[in-house]
């Protein structure tokens, strides 16, 4: 198993919401913060690349999701 890189059963710290939904967390940990360049993974700190990869993963993380009321939409 390669999954012990990050021990996963540790309790969450008291600060911050408990059980934060992933989509809300990604809104914050990926796209924000003081933008500075790193040495090794500059491309990762670069939001468009991250967004691109996520697009295939979570439709909810893409800016390309059409407006919910596009013609014929549910509203």
């Amino acid at each position, binding site marked *: 198993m*390669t*999954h*012990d*890189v*990050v*021990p*996963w059963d*540790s309790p*969450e*710290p*008291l*600060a*911050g*919401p408990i059980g*934060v*939904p*992933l*989509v*809300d*967390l*990604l*809104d*914050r*940990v*990926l*796209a*924000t*913060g*003081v*933008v*500075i*360049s*790193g*040495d*090794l*993974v500059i*491309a*990762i*700190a670069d*939001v468009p690349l*991250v967004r691109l*990869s*996520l697009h*295939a*993963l*979570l*439709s*909810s*993380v*893409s*800016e390309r*999701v059409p*407006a*919910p*009321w596009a013609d014929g*939409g*549910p*509203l």
Partner: protein
Amino acid sequence: MTERGPESSDANATYVFAVCWNPDPSAVARLPGVADDAPVSLLPLGALTAIVQTVRARDFTNEVWQARLSDQRELERYARAHHDVVSAAAACCPTVPLPMATLYQSEERAREALSSEADRFHAALKRIAYHAEWGVKVYVQPSPPDESNHGATPTVRSRPAPGAGLAYLDRKRGAQERREQRRDEALQVAEAVDTEVRSLATASRRLRLHGPQPSGERRVQVLNATYLVAEHRADELTLLTQALRERTGAQVELSGPWVPYSFVGEV
């Protein structure tokens, strides 16, 4: 693939979680961080302190991140590990989070690069002191299925009554108008909620709207916004969102307090 290779042959890198004012080392020391090789530790930068962890460079290359980003469970593990460290630091001192996956080739390089941005970090720390970030999302229910097909029973097919085509067009037009009206109402609710919450916030940002969830949930998100709110106004915010729920009838979800991730950039 073994996770524990010969450590001596591995190049190390420095992962940076956040930059703080005077953190307590014990606040983060016991957290796992993003690797198990070294503890999360402090890197002094003059008046600032970075929260860092030494990791194996080969576990954090661009290629490895690409693979990680395409695996939702892996992505979630790293996002939460990053968030745990940031949250623990913020619980003890003013903290500016860095985006996930900010790495340097060495502590020296990290110190050099972060120190050169010291003014921006100080400005961001001043702005967010005694504040927290709160997310507000508004959802409305989708409209019921199109009613324009009502009455389209097989018996009707044999011979259309006179005027059936016109009636059909009227129904279609009516459905379109109702849809537009619902859209306008939903937008008005979103704007009203945003305006009211902004009135007690220090700063605000609109985030991208979330698309439909894979769970098949049918409600539609019409606002995804986030606000920087002074600590002493947090109770007011809770009351306001409750009032907005009652007044608008929409689902208004409040999340927080968050470390002010969304309000530390653009200094």
